[in-house]
């Protein structure tokens, strides 16, 4: 919402500066977005009088002027044809910036003669396109600031323009008078009396109006109008054009400009029909569906059933409260005009406007709410202005429907400001504030003014009082702790897991990414998503059309982008939600890591190597351990098909309880996402990790033996597809008391062992608890180990 200072002063008697007004507006909730003060740009320009003008000795078109200026007599060279003795001109002295030529004036020599400044044209000061000659002023004192001269003699040229942001609850501030009322309530001036008009009609309106029965509810409450015949619709007067131009509107014709004036002056949209083009009466009704209208924006609209339109005998002529039709629009030839002032249901306007995608000033205002009580006075005022500016003769007013009753009152509890806001404002001041805003107080009941649709309860009264008093007066007051003493921890177990997983992954060398939750359908489809249930109805681009079914596609795409930038060794991870459906409950927290390239750059120690699934496995296990997963897990195959079929494992507690997956990504998948080379990674679902049963911080007592442990190595030749885990489990089962752990320390495939055979070497650590092991004991358990392994795996002890 834009307005000028002089426009505001039509309604508000005030001496406040533009800066004070702007600051106050922002403070009371009408946030100033921009202030354009033309006077600021003209601050350096002053008036001077040319006392002597001689021809330049070396240039025919230049004049050497002696000019009386604020800095005394100065010599200025001027090229304008009208530079001559006796004129009062506008001087830019050295150091002044001249916007029209984007130059700061200096002292210089022009064709050998010194010049101490410049005399300006209107174009050079960006006041207009006028550049025939320099400005000649009919009045003014030497040294007077040009902006001051303009303010007195041509104020529109230096009228400051203020632009404010309007929150949806304040339609009243979409009219300049409403803004003035807020400022007056704050004490920044006093309201001038509201203009009033009453124009008796001299003949019956030839155009009648009606509202269909089914349209009165939730459509149009009141439709009023009158004919004004014999008007001359020329350009509007200069003052009106200046105002509209200042706020960014294009003056069109007197009739249209008048409706725009009331839209901005009083938040009262009006419409004018060229009466000659209206066939019969005007009827407000709901569209049957399929009707069309060429509107004033020169676009054609087709109406859905139920939309509210205005028709004459030939069909739809206007989209009620949103935009008029081109056919009945006023032109310079308009002689008889039908002026409409109506009240539309704001919900209906919002829905129709949204459906038709029309953003008009009228829609903007009607969907927020106009003052119903001002409908008829507004019609009268507009009639008055039309008669004044365009001549003509007004008919009687015709109406259909009636002004809706919006009267309501709420109890003003003057203690509420203290208890809700925490500001101490005397009861008298509270009542005075409300009255200044137009509320009517009866005892402790506050009757809401008709232009404030937003005030719907007691809390709104508090808000009005507090904002006019200024929230800057609010002093912070300590809020007691929720309980006395040391604060309790606040994170849930899952929230702690999320943090621990994140910090563990970073400690393992992964860089945390935050990637978009929506990805393209192809990438989503590769990971089991991309269906209609996770699709956005209005994506911002096809790259962001589906909710991600997994974090890995986003990480793979991030890896591809980094590879393209020359970063080849990557360890990326993300902690976030993946979406397996389109319902609120269909999100699941996931931790995913991705390794691409080598473990690090090539290095002198030869430690750098290509990453493989065992890196991913170790990292997955480290993260799981950090979030409290049990150490004993099963590694099963058969995870989703975006993993390499032979190179992945599910980390499980039983076949149905999957804590995570690690492995190499399917080469097709990484290739499809433009990742070069193999990629390995892991995914963990922190919520799947069971809560430890134990409560309390106490650890189980430490059991350590003083007896010397013994390690023995065994190598077995087994079939190539025998899994190490089977062998280890068999060995460990040989004597659960004695065997502390079993670990694989070597794997050798093929060679002398022959096709499809491999050798697995294990170390078994024996920890006696009662007595030192003797050779016979070790022999016995070794035999048992070999026996168990051979039975379980079909392998043989390697000789």
């Amino acid at each position, binding site marked *: 919402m834009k307005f000028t200072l002089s426009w505001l002063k039509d309604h508000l008697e005030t001496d406040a500066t533009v800066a004070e007004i702007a600051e106050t507006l922002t403070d009371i909730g009408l946030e100033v977005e921009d202030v354009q003060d033309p006077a600021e740009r003209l601050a350096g320009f002053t008036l001077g009088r040319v006392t002597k003008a001689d021809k330049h000795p070396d240039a025919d078109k230049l004049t050497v002027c002696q000019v009386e200026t604020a800095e005394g007599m100065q010599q200025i060279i001027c090229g304008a044809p009208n530079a001559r003795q006796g004129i009062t001109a506008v001087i830019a002295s050295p150091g002044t910036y001249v916007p029209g030529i984007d130059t700061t004036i200096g002292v210089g020599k022009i064709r050998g003669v010194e010049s101490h400044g410049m005399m300006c044209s209107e174009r050079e000061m960006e006041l207009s396109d006028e550049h025939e000659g320099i400005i000649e002023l009919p009045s003014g004192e030497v040294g007077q600031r040009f902006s001051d001269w303009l303010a007195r003699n041509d104020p529109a040229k230096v009228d400051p323009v203020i632009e404010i942001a309007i929150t*949806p609850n304040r339609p009243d501030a979409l009219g300049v008078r409403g803004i003035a009322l807020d400022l007056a309530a704050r004490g920044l001036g006093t309201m001038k009396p509201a203009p009033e008009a009453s124009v008796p009609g001299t003949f019956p309106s030839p155009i009648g109006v009606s509202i269909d029965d089914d349209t009165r509810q939730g459509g149009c409450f009141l439709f009023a109008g009158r004919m004004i015949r014999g008007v001359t619709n020329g350009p509007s007067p200069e003052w009106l054009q200046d105002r509209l131009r200042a706020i960014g509107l294009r003056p069109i014709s007197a009739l249209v400009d008048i409706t725009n004036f009331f839209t901005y002056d009083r938040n009262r949209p009006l419409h004018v029909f060229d009466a000659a083009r209206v066939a019969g009466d005007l009827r407000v009704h709901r569209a049957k569906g399929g009707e069309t209208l060429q509107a004033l924006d020169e676009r054609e609209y087709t109406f859905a059933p139920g939309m509210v339109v205005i028709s004459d005998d030939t069909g739809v002529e206007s989209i009620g409260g949103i935009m008029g039709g081109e056919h009945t629009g006023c032109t310079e030839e308009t002689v008889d005009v039908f002026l409409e002032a109506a009240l539309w249901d704001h919900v209906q306007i919002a829905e129709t406007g949204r459906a038709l995608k029309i953003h008009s000033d009228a829609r903007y205002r009607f969907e927020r709410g106009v003052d119903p009580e001002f409908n008829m006075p507004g019609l009268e005022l507009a009639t008055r202005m039309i008669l004044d500016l365009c001549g003509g003769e007004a008919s009687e007013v015709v109406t259909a429907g009636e002004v809706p009753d919006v009267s309501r009152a709420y109890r003003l509890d003057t203690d509420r400001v203290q208890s809700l806001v925490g500001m101490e404002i005397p009861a008298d001041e509270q009542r005075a504030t409300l009255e200044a805003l137009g509320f009517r107080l009866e005892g402790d009941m506050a009757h809401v003014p008709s232009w404030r649709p937003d005030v719907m309860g007691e809390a709104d009264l508090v808000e009005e009082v*507090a904002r006019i008093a200024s929230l800057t007066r609010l002093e912070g007051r300590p*809020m007691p702790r929720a309980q006395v003493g040391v604060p309790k921890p606040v994170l849930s177990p899952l929230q702690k897991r999320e943090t621990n997983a994140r*910090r563990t992954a*970073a400690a393992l060398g992964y860089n945390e990414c935050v990637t978009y939750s929506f990805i393209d359908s192809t990438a989503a489809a590769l990971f089991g998503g991309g269906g209609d*249930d996770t699709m*956005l109805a209005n994506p911002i681009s096809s790259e*962001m059309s589906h909710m991600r079914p997994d974090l890995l596609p986003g990480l793979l795409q991030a890896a591809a982008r980094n590879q393209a930038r020359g970063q080849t060794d990557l360890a990326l991870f993300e902690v976030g939600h993946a979406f397996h459906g389109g319902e609120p409950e269909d999100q699941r927290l996931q931790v995913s890591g991705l390794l691409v390239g080598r473990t690090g750059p090539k290095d002198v120690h030869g430690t750098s190597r290509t990453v493989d699934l065992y890196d991913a496995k170790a990292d997955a296990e480290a993260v799981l351990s950090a979030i409290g997963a049990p150490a004993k897990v099963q590694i099963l195959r058969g995870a989703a098909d975006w993993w390499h079929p032979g190179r992945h494992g599910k980390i499980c507690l039983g076949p149905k309880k999957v804590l995570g997956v690690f492995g190499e990504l399917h080469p097709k998948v990484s290739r499809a996402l433009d990742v070069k080379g193999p990629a390995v990674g892991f995914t963990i679902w922190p919520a799947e990790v069971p809560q430890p049963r134990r409560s309390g911080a106490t650890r189980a007592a430490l059991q350590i033996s003083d007896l010397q442990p013994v390690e023995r190595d065994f190598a077995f030749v087994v079939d190539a597809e025998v899994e190490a885990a089977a062998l280890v489990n068999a060995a460990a089962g040989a004597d659960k008391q004695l065997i502390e752990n079993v670990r694989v320390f070597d794997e050798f495939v093929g060679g002398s062992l022959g096709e499809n055979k491999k050798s697995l070497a294990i170390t078994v650590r024996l920890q006696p608890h009662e007595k030192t092991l003797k050779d016979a004991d070790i022999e016995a358990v070794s035999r048992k180990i070999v026996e168990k392994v051979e039975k379980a795996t079909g392998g043989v002890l390697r000789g």
Partner: protein
Amino acid sequence: MDDLRDKYLNAIAAAEDEAALEELRVQALGKKGEISLKMRELGKMTQDERKEAGPKLNALKDEINAALAAKREALADAALDERLRAEWLDVTLPGRPRPSGSIHPVSQVTEEVTAIFADMGFSVAEGPQVESDWHNFDALNIPGHHPARAEMDTFYMHRADGDDRPPHVLRTHTSPVQIRAMELAGAPLRVICPGRVYRADYDQTHTPMFHQVEGLAIDRDISMANLKWCLEEFVKAFFEVDDVELRFRASHFPFTEPSAEVDIRCSWQGGTLKVGEGDDWLEILGSGMVHPKVLMAGNIDPAYWQGFAFGLGIDRIAMLKYGIPDLRAFFDSDLRWLRHYGFSALDVPTLRAGLSR
């Protein structure tokens, strides 16, 4: 005897290696060594002779043993010195590489915010990102026709044919978590709700996804003055300054009443923000007293309970605090950016150690 002493001590001093020393030891102290033989002769002496010669011989034996040990050690030291001289390594070669990971600024700042509010008794509530139309709008006093809906650039989820429910939305703010937290826990209540939010907007300063944290405190007598204090404390703690000035400006949000936008006093110099000084004001968040209709939507009786709510942008305060220029880069995963603006795994923000290093 002195001759003997001089002979061996000189010989030991002159010995060049371990073998020569051993030879000398055998010569002197071995079974048939010169001194051993002399000691054996002690038995043949008279008691008086023995009294005189015995201690002398023993002293000589000890002296030679000590000289041998000292020389042996000296020889070993020399040998070690010699070996170490050969064991020169180029210490300017790099150490074995160790990967270094990083924490994203959004996660770090979320933890910072959580640490501060946890101390004031706020726990962390969460909610879904695909949210029902009701939770995201209606429950927050934003009915279907409300202009605020259009202004929010909402992402809608696809609705299957025949499913006549209003389409779900990607939550446009973290405010719906207020409703879920109230439904779940009732009053009194203190929660913050950090998380991802979505708006269909993409330009220099907007991304279609960003992060907010919502705050909600409900009790019998919590006022807007408490809100101001709470935010002052937060801003001081977060920006790690001793004093800060907040300016509350009246504003409007459908879900709070009264509503205020909050600015902090700051200065911008050379593109660097300093909080708590200067003549500029920077808008950092929106806030207000929870609207009675919102309390009712969360099954809390507004006749008994009241409280405040606020919402601020996590990415935005991360940018301000850490001088990160471009929001879009947050979600691009450029390794150079992640390393430069990221945080170490052990930089856990705490109140006792400070939020930032």
